[in-house]
């Protein structure tokens, strides 16, 4: 008689099968709230999808899922014989816990978070993917550690910061954690790097010093994304379709990621 050990719980077996059909996993994280991780993850996923990469976006922010809002997708989710169907947004496959809870709060302690994330990943019908972009939640708790472990060996981390010294200080701690957990860092995305008013750039969080930031993070800056107020009024997807600094920065980011 054999009783498979805990690592052989059924969803984990299914997760391994799903992972085999995905070429790259990009974790988008900062360890901190308010730097625009979900905007960067959603914009990156849409940009990769637009250049023809088979891409999906998985939002694992249990308590504050915001990807459905950014991409204007909502419940209900459908299910077919292969599992839960991701929502489609201009060719991008989107899955989020927010699609199951809507506006309900999700109060939850540590127990069960890893299983919840594993189940959501394992039960989704992703198909074959070139890129799975993961929108990580703030902090360095269960969700982040679960993602590190679940996607181990296939994942690279894109660090998101603003130029603010407070953000840089917290995000550099995630850089150190990635090192100890042996998760390769793809590079640093400086979000809200500037605001464009006409042709004048202003720097609400201070002018990013590329050399100092790269030294601090021991990584290359792969994109500097401006703060574009039109994102909140017109929506992320519409602004990305235009010809502007914001969309060009995301195109560059997608190129850097797929390099």
């Amino acid at each position, binding site marked *: *008689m*054999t*009783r*498979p050990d805990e690592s*052989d*719980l*059924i*969803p984990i*077996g*299914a997760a391994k*099968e799903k992972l085999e059909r995905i070429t790259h996993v990009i974790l988008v994280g900062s360890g901190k709230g308010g730097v625009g991780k979900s905007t960067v993850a959603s914009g990156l996923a849409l940009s990769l999808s637009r250049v023809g990469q088979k891409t999906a976006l998985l939002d694992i922010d249990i308590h504050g899922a915001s990807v459905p809002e950014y991409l204007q997708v909502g*419940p*209900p*989710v*459908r*299910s*077919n*014989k*292969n*599992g*839960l169907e991701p929502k489609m947004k201009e060719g991008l496959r989107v899955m989020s*816990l927010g699609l*199951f*809870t*809507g506006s*309900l*709060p*999700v*109060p*939850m*302690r540590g*127990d*069960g*978070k890893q*299983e*919840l994330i594993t*189940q*959501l990943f*394992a*039960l989704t019908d992703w198909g074959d993917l070139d890129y799975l972009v993961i929108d990580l939640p703030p902090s360095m708790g269960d969700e982040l550690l679960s993602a590190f472990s679940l996607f181990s060996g296939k994942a690279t981390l894109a660090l998101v910061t603003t130029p603010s010294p407070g953000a840089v200080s917290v995000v550099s701690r995630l850089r150190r954690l990635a090192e100890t957990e042996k998760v390769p860092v793809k590079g640093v995305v400086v979000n809200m790097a500037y605001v464009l008013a006409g042709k004048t750039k202003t720097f609400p969080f201070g002018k990013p010093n590329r050399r100092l930031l790269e030294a601090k993070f021991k990584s290359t800056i792969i994109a500097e994304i401006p703060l574009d107020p039109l994102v909140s009024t017109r929506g992320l997807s519409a602004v990305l379709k235009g010809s502007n600094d914001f969309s060009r920065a995301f195109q560059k980011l997608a190129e850097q990621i797929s390099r």
Partner: protein
Amino acid sequence: MHELSIAQSIVDTVLSEAQKKDAKRVTEISVDVGQLMQLDRNALAFALRLLMTGPVLRGARVSVRVKKASFSCRKCNQEWGMAEAQKQLEEVPDTLRVREPDSKELPLHFLPFLYPAFIHCPRCGSSDIFSKEGEEIQFRRLVME
């Protein structure tokens, strides 16, 4: 429908376990499913038998047992079972129910660990609750030779 994909996951896991252990034949697969998942145990057993083709799995004995769910409140220590939780689950808005080809299922059917979003303490109303068991799917016995 979900029973079929769960059955497929079980079969995949058993086959990979058999390969790891270099087993020629699997003779028994016993599985515990948490009550919170609200799976149809007969449908799951049927789907398993349907998928157990090939020399390694053919003829293996299949047993599916439902593990009762029970909850406890961290605030007032109240304890309750699935019957009480079910009343709250009936209130889950229709828009959040997952569309299957011929039915609408609760999100917990797929993601049982999401229960704190839908279940609260029936005595004090707190959402700071925990489930003692009933949200997992696990092997109880797997016999191979």
